[in-house]
């Protein structure tokens, strides 16, 4: 099931220590779930994990999440302004935003393209794909 990504964290969230300024297990599960959703959609094989608050996020787990994002990204398309896939470790709000913005953009683009909205000279002419 797709879970709406969160990618509007701001420095103030970190400074003021709001809930969005932290990585909790719910955040990682949302990313894992959305990766899985897109992987199934595009027929890509990835490995996901269900996190609990007693788990410990290691670098290898962060790298696995990164590989998942790269895999679903390579399986479809992103907007021109979609952020590059950030390097691990995932320990800043900017990287956290980028990760979920990527997932959001892939899904949004897929959804838009799935509506079969064709514009003259666009869909098969080879340039920019989809609705942009």
């Amino acid at each position, binding site marked *: 099931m797709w879970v709406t990504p969160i990618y509007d*964290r701001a420095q103030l*969230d*970190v400074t003021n*220590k709001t*809930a969005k*300024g*932290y*990585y*909790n*297990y719910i955040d*990682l599960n949302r990313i894992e779930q959305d990766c899985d959703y897109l992987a199934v959609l595009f027929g890509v094989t990835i490995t996901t994990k269900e*996190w*609990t*608050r*007693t*788990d*410990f*996020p*290691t*670098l*290898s*787990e*962060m790298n696995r999440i990164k590989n998942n994002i790269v895999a679903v990204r390579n399986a479809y398309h992103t907007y021109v302004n979609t952020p590059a896939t950030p390097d*691990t*470790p995932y*320990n*800043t*709000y900017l*990287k*956290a935003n980028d990760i979920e913005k990527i997932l959001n953009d892939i899904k949004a683009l897929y959804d838009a393209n799935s509506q079969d909205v064709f514009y003259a000279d666009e869909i098969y002419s080879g340039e920019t794909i989809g609705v942009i």
Partner: protein
Amino acid sequence: MERTVIALDLIDVTAKSDSSPTSTDKQTFVDLTQLKSDSLSVSKYATLEDNFFLLDGSFEPFPETPASEDMGYWSLSQSDENGEFTINPVLEIDFTENHTSAGLTLTFLEDYPLEINVKWYTLTDVKISEKIFEPDALYYFCDNQIEDFGKITIEFTKTNPYRYVKLEKIDYGVYKEFSYDELASTTINEEINPISSEISINTANFALHNDNGDFDLTGLHGVYKLFQQTQKVHISQVFDTETKQMGTFYLDTWKSPDEYNAEFTAVDAVGLIDKTDFKLGQIYVNETAENIIDAIMDSAGIADYTIADDLKSITLSGWIPICTHREALQQVAFALNAIVDDSRGNTIKIYDGAQSYGRVIPRSRKFSGGSTDLLTYVSDINLTAHNYVLKDSSEQISTGTYAAGTYEIQFDTAVSDLSATGATITESHPNYCVITVSAEGTVTLTGKKYTDSSSIYNYSVANLPSGAGRNVVSCKDATLMSLSNVAEIAQELFNYYQLRYQTSVEIELENELTGEKAAMQRANGTDYTMETIEKMAIDLVGGFTAQLTTLGNGTNIVSADYLNEKYVGEDIGVM
């Protein structure tokens, strides 16, 4: 406003090493013996405890193999939404002997529990005291002075929601600062020896005053009971814009004329290593100075020391017999012509020659009453070079009747190929061995001894200065002098002894350091001499003044200036 601060580590210095922490509620990666370490450093690791992993870039991923990292104590249980546990995690610390401390200083990792219950017991498990604390910082002092405890339990009863208990450090005592009116006097005595014919022990003497009568020897809760030998004393000078570290010392003696006053003496790390023996010396053949010094420091338990890069790879040959760690270090430093300096910090620094930072001591900073003495002229250096050779044949090293037990037998010469009758050798070193005797009887040790085939190297001047007679300085006990370094060191010694002008003067101290060279303006106002500061007695409470003892060649470096030297580059004068 300038002030002196003395920070005393009022810690039971043996409690940590004597402690045995245990807990049934701990993560599998936890090694509780880490809590006995003074140098544990746990990184800021990310976890998924609720609202813990702040996305500010400061958290590191949790380690892949935490068992091989510094981790401290992590409970296995995690608290619930109310910060409570089903069964409270308990850390039990057992000791083999009685200890006394002002309480416990706990250092938590990134988040502190909200409530803990600490109980103190005797060695026979009788409860002495119980107290509930509500920590409000990562670094928290559980204030409860207890004498003669033999067991402590720390029960963690409440945390923030969904938290492990994470503890980096337990210190058995408290860190206490004294300043302003509490300091009646503070004097630091620093000294270096440029040729390391000995390694000086820096000392600190200070007197504390307390209006509450805390220094009452018989008071039940007075701070007096908490003083122990080798507790750390950190002395600093705090200015408006900076703090100068004036040295780390170790408490040595104290006395209390009344309940309001106490007087202390403390020694530096060199003084500390003078109290223990270096037994692991051996016959060295072209061994690097770094390796030898590392072995001495490791044996002494000293981690804070530096060796100048240009000294590390110098190779030395000879022998270090059983002696104090200070004497062993002196043997190495003498053979390197290096300075050992422990002033103004907590690091023993080993470097080559007096440092020059272009310091100038103007007449305006000197008090009246100084003097300059002319030391005795030295014309000759006789330095013995040693050559230790292993004998071809074995001989009896020692014999005697021993009861059953374990014994350490020390040798007065280095020995190799050791064997024993009547006992089992459990440890064998060139300077000593450990034997185990199973039944009373005669024990005979046999081995090959090293003999010293020594020679004397003479360095002298052919023509004496007018009016001077021959005066020989001899050194035969420098056991790391060999034919490969004796000539160089003899010349260095000779050069040092040509510095005969010893000046004693009191100055207003600025940035001068013991072991430095400084240009000193002489009384006539026009002459300057380049002096090595060998000794300082610094009065920190009485105006930040220092009584200096310096050594130089008496040459006026202003009149003896060389092209482009006097005012350019600031290596002043003829040095």
